[in-house]
């Protein structure tokens, strides 16, 4: 309906292959970015940033990573939390063990370490697929759970088992307030989302998708499954690892291995399923949905209960949260297996065809 595409013709492949080939989309995304960078800092309060926006940004980054592996390359993983943990603890160790290492470098090294571990745990993917692989990735999860709980070296012999970081700064910019943290995560996510989009629209992305869609045919046209799968594991783990580092450093400041438990893995998986497998946009939708749902339920359930004269306890809310959460997952799988991103793109397609239905 809002689309007026007449006259938006492409005279070069560069123009045809840009990320947002439709001018209206370009304007929309520009608007969103302007709002995120200028509008929100002006309007938002600290609670909003701390409780919603920062987790959303970081988990979006992690979901991007999971989506690269699950959505684009078709390798199911139930161990994403493990790679967040690896990223976080590796960054932590680089941070505290190497004097004066810039924060950015620490986080990136955390991501790289996670990528290496990801490659190791990706090796089974060369032999097994689907459900078997999903179980194999759980191995990574339980292994890292154990490592960071039981091997004191990784936690710098912290007696409580919890580690913490302080004095975060980048070239003199001290990241202390929620506003600082928000901006830092936003910049980071913007850059990495762009990188992810670029990968998925170039040769490597096509290799991943080819492996996902029809691995035998992919091999026949000269795609090496080894490289395609392991690169997906590496890139995915890198994204997830840096997200883990951000989660620990920026969001939590101090954390225990439980922050990256198997529940986190499931949560990330749900994000990409509900958001939309194989869609960059979907990762954001999924993260937004999963971050805001519990908060919304916490706000609304007691209120709704109140309407009917029922008091809903905090525990009750958390139980109801589980039920609603589970039902929503099933509902999505039945009604829209391709997630919110598909709803989005169908909606967009409808708007482009409006007033025609198809």
């Amino acid at each position: 309906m809002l689309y007026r595409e007449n006259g938006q013709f492409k005279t070069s492949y560069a123009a045809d292959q840009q990320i947002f080939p439709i001018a209206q989309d370009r304007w929309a995304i520009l608007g969103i970015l302007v709002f995120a960078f200028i509008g929100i800092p002006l309007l938002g309060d600290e609670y909003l940033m701390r409780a919603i926006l920062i987790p959303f940004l970081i988990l979006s980054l992690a979901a991007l990573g999971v989506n690269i592996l699950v959505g684009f390359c078709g390798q199911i993983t139930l161990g994403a939390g493990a790679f967040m943990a690896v990223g976080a603890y590796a960054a932590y160790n680089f941070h505290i063990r190497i004097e004066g290492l810039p924060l950015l470098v620490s986080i990136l090294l955390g991501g790289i370490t996670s990528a290496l571990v990801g490659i190791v745990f990706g090796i089974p993917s060369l032999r097994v697929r689907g459900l078997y692989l999903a179980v194999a990735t759980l191995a990574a999860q339980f292994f890292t759970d154990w490592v960071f709980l039981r091997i004191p070296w990784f936690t710098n012999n912290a007696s409580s088992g919890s580690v913490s970081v302080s004095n975060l700064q980048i070239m003199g910019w001290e990241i202390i307030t929620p506003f600082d943290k928000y901006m830092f995560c936003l910049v980071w996510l913007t850059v990495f989302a762009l990188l992810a989009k670029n990968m998925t629209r170039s040769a490597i992305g096509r290799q991943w998708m080819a492996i996902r869609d029809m691995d035998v045919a992919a091999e026949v046209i000269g795609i090496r499954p080894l490289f395609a799968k392991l690169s997906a594991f590496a890139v995915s783990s890198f994204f997830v690892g840096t997200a883990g580092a951000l989660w620990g450093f920026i969001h939590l400041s101090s954390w225990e291995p439980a922050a990256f438990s198997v529940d986190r893995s499931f949560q990330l998986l749900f994000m990409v399923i509900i958001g939309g497998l194989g869609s960059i946009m979907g990762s954001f939708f999924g993260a937004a949905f999963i971050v805001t749902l519990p908060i919304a339920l916490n706000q609304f359930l007691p209120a709704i209960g109140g309407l009917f004269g029922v008091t809903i306890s905090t525990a009750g809310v958390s139980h109801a949260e589980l039920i609603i959460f589970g039902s929503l997952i099933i509902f999505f799988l039945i009604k829209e297996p391709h997630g919110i991103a598909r709803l989005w793109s169908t909606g967009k397609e409808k708007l482009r065809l409006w007033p025609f239905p198809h």
Partner: protein
Amino acid sequence: MAVSRAMDTFPRLLFHHSRVRGDKTAMREKDLGIWQSWSWSDVAEQVSALACGLAELGFRRGDNLAIIGDNRPRLYMTMAAVQCLGGVPVPLYQDAVAYEMLFVMQDAGIRFALVEDQEQVDKLLEIKAQLPLLEHVAYDDPRGMRHYNQPFIHDIEALLAIGRIHIRNHPDFLGDEIAKGAANDIGVMLYTSGTTGKPKGVCLTHNAFISAAKGGVEFDRLTADEDILSYLPMAWVGDHLFSFAQAMVTGFTINCPESGETVMTDMREIGPTYYFAPPRVFENLLTQVMIRMEDASAIKQKLFHYCMKVARRCGADVLDGKPVPVADRLLYLLGTLLIFGPLKNVLGMSRVRVAYTAGAAIGPDLFRFYRSIGINLKQLYGQTETCAYVCLQPDGEIKFDSVGKPAPGVEVRIADNGEILVKGPMLLKEYYKRPDATAEAINAEGYFMTGDAGLFDDEGHLKIIDRAKDVGKLANGAMYAPNYIENKLKFFQYIKEAVAFGDSREMVCAFINFDIGAVGNWAERRGIAYSGYTDLAAKAEVYGLIQECIEQVNTELLHEGALADSQIHRFLILHKELDPDDDELTRTRKVRRNFVAEKYAVLIDALYSGKSSQFIETAVKFEDGRQGKVAADLQIRDIKTFPVAGRADR
């Protein structure tokens, strides 16, 4: 190179553009997934190379070159190249089969042909034996041409290459050739379709097309920034005017679609600002719109129909800048946002500033639809012989049943027999090698006789009535145009066929076939039971319905000057539908007037003898081939006619 600054031939115009807007896009073609573009200087360079390549092959001043193919930039460039050399491009219809091309190729004495692809080369090879004059064939698309070793078949690339070498060796050659050209040289030869007799080559000068193009450009204030989609056959005069002549005059951009299948998509991408299509294209688009809307949800359909109602009420006035009530204006704005804008977008017409249609009568509903959603659709009138340039509808003065006012520089006169005569710089120079036909078409005063009958209404708009030869006279000498009257009747949804009588008679009477679907529906809503067409045809209510329609036609005719006497006095509803199986209609569903008059002579007699009913029995063929008879007592009704004022004028 030195080229005269006068811009009176197309080559001079081309080099003018390459000088003043060399970097601006002259042509685009959707190819290999994107819009490949040529700037004016690219075009000038390629045209030069092509011209020199042709010269190298032996193309001489005065030679004719056949151009056969879909709209392709290279084909347009070849036209210009041929003109540079003082030759004449002769575009042919690309979908014609080989033997259909034969006559034109022979008639025009074609020595050179530039064709699009293998398909066209094959056609020429098929008739090569009958074309002793044909020396060289060049093709644009090399696909499948690998094994064509004949020395007279050339790849256009090779032609360009030898042309470029020629330019290096003879840098002044082309400039000199262009300088030799004169405005009065033949610029292009277009063959008339030849519904009667063999096609005739219409020789049109540079001056004729440039005048016509300039007139149109000024009339619609076209600029160098227009985009036009070139998708109609290059052999058709309209395409030559819009895609070639006007582009050359203003320097705007022509856009060639990727293929026939992708025209709609390509149109959506380009979003032309200036658009031309024959009525059937507009009609198909509208049908598609309606069909696709039927699948929409109920709410959306409601919204659509509501908005269309608003548009019908005030859309045309908004477009014409006439005063519209504020409430309507707001509703229309909302409609634009919700329906009209998106609709134009999916039709590829968001950017259309001026759209024309011509070639056949366009139904008022159709015309109104496009105008009401804000597309400035207008009609024009012209022939191949007049560079498709006689009358244009000025912005803001749109009438559904006229073709507008005489275009700038054109003189239009109505002859005594109603025939439209035109004179102006855009007239043909002659029919190729047919002085007899030329003499027949242009009268002593230099008017071209269009063969159409028409009249000017009170505001000076030309209305086309009929082919001049079909126009008769009533007993009192007033003009009588049966087709015109019948078409008016058929615009009513209830009337399917109408046959009018009146030639040499004192009044006009008519047979009516109603539309069984529409009238059947109407009857059902009124609880009128009926068993079939014949039954329904005898109902007084149906007579009443048809009578209302005819009365309305009469009131309209009253205001149409010369046709005021053609008001219908009496009519009857035929007891059976006119049917091609009974030879009453042609297979294309045109009434066989004489056959019908003969077959139903008894009814005609009854109409003119003042009877109020008449029995008739008719043999019919049923769909399964059986023969049968239909008999009925037909009622005949008188209709109110209106006295004609100012009879003294005639």
